[in-house]
């Protein structure tokens, strides 16, 4: 078996090339005047930090943090009870419902966003069929609801898979030892499902934080988010002086959230195998 170890080595090289190298390079970009497209001698400078004083960046950043937080909390409040309810069903129903939960994810995310655009439009096809009108396009509510619709399943899956693996005898043991339902939940079930909750939080928080196509479409660009700014810095204004350097700096900030998430996830998921 040990002779097979060597097959993991190329993967290490591959990951260093595509994860470590770009991260280091982004750091260099963020703290220097180096141009991504014309590599040359560069000098370290901290001028890029000035963007954090620009009001559009501050607004975008605070919007993103608030929405991502709200979406994550809402996902948890809805997702946890649903995941719990799913575990109480028969094996067959469970399988079918989980498949049905995955099914919407097979449609293109952008197409789903355009569908929400129709739903939130005044005089929409949605109104024609269901006789209800929700004309909230261009508002914060539209953005938050859209994000929730995209990422809620990612809260349900990890919590469900952890809860489903719980030994039912553990719950019986807890009751046997005198705990009532609420105590059993607080003292036994919830702590044991914490790994799933943490993955769920991360898998909804990080994508919500960095969304850009969704706020562009459902927020009509009236609701700026940080993903839109990063995208602008790298693609639309990519050839302007220092634009990519500023983008790199914002990316590094986002990466800090990723790293924090990582530290959290390795704390609760010691084997690193319960992500999906």
């Amino acid at each position, binding site marked *: 078996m040990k002779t097979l170890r060597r097959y993991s080595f190329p993967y290490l090289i591959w990951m260093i090339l595509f994860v470590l190298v*770009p991260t280091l390079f982004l750091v260099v970009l963020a703290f220097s005047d180096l141009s991504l497209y014309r590599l040359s001698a560069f000098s370290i400078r901290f001028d890029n930090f000035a963007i954090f004083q620009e009001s559009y960046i501050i607004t975008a950043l605070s919007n993103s943090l608030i929405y991502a937080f709200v979406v994550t909390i809402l996902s948890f409040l809805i997702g946890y009870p649903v995941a719990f309810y799913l575990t109480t069903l028969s094996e067959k129903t469970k399988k079918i419902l989980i498949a049905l*939960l995955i099914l*919407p994810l097979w449609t*293109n995310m952008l*197409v789903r966003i355009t569908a929400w*655009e129709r739903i939130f439009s005044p*005089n929409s096809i949605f109104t024609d069929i269901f006789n209800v009108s929700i004309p909230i396009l261009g508002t914060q509510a539209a953005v938050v609801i859209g994000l929730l619709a995209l990422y809620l399943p990612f809260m349900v899956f990890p919590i469900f898979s952890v809860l489903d693996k719980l030994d039912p005898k553990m719950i019986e043991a807890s009751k046997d030892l005198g705990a009532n339902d609420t105590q059993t939940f607080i003292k036994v079930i919830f702590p044991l499902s914490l790994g799933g909750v943490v993955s769920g939080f991360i898998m909804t928080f990080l994508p919500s934080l960095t969304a850009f196509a969704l706020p562009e479409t459902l927020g009509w660009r009236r609701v700026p988010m940080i993903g839109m700014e990063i995208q602008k810095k790298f693609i639309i204004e990519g050839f302007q002086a220092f634009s990519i350097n500023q983008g790199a700096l914002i*990316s590094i900030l986002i990466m800090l959230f*990723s790293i924090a998430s990582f530290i959290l996830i390795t704390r609760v998921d010691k084997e690193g195998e319960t992500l999906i």
Partner: protein
Amino acid sequence: MINSRLMKKKSRQGAGLLLTILLFAFLYLPIIIIFIISINNSTRGYRFEGLTLKWYSELLFNFKTPSSDLVIFREAIFNTIWVALRSTIIATVLGTIFAIGINALDKKRRVRMMVLNNIPVVNPDIVTGISLMVVFTLISFSLGETTVLIAHVFFSIPYVVLSVVPKLKRLDPNMYEAALDLGCSRLCAIWKVIIPNISTGIIGGALIAFTMSIDDFVISYFTSGIDFENVSIWLYTKMKNPQNLNPTLYAYNVLIILITIGVILFISLKRDRKEKQK
């Protein structure tokens, strides 16, 4: 006593059921809208104007007089599927090999490799996209189809690894040695004994890789440059004016769902039958 216990349980179950129904309704609402637009007799899809299948026939069969839009869209579909097929095959082969290697490591190293493996899974797509874009630019690889393909292989491998490693862990480690003992070389032992016993993990990983690749937008967007368009990138450029979106797009999406359901049903039925034979 028993009755009150039952009542409590029932009411809790009722609340769970209600919330679950609401969640499904919420998640399926856009899917229903997508489906309706695909069979709606209106070009712009904002009003309901009666049922039709013309968008499907337009997408699938109109090769004589396609609009220029449809030609570009079809090219984007072709690009999407062609990249997905290749990246899935490459990622599945590499991911399986890497998973076999990772599984053979001692515990400390294995956990470290799994953490490394999970970086692209946890990292927001935008960070992964930018990182890859930076690497490609750094090694002066001009952005285009090849870079998108490499990017898709990159983000697919971790899912294959995550889906194969648990299957490997469940194998009796002596099984590989038993194959060696009975005269197999290393590669023969992997091929004849390990692979057949982790095939469900490999197929599962390949399915995830394929659907991730087909639906990917953000990473493709950052690694494609200007010459290459898949469905998502094509759609994104049109989303600035959503009223111009043609219902053939929605027909395409419904078809993708149906095909995916078909493939999954086929695989799970086959597996069920196999299990019954045992």
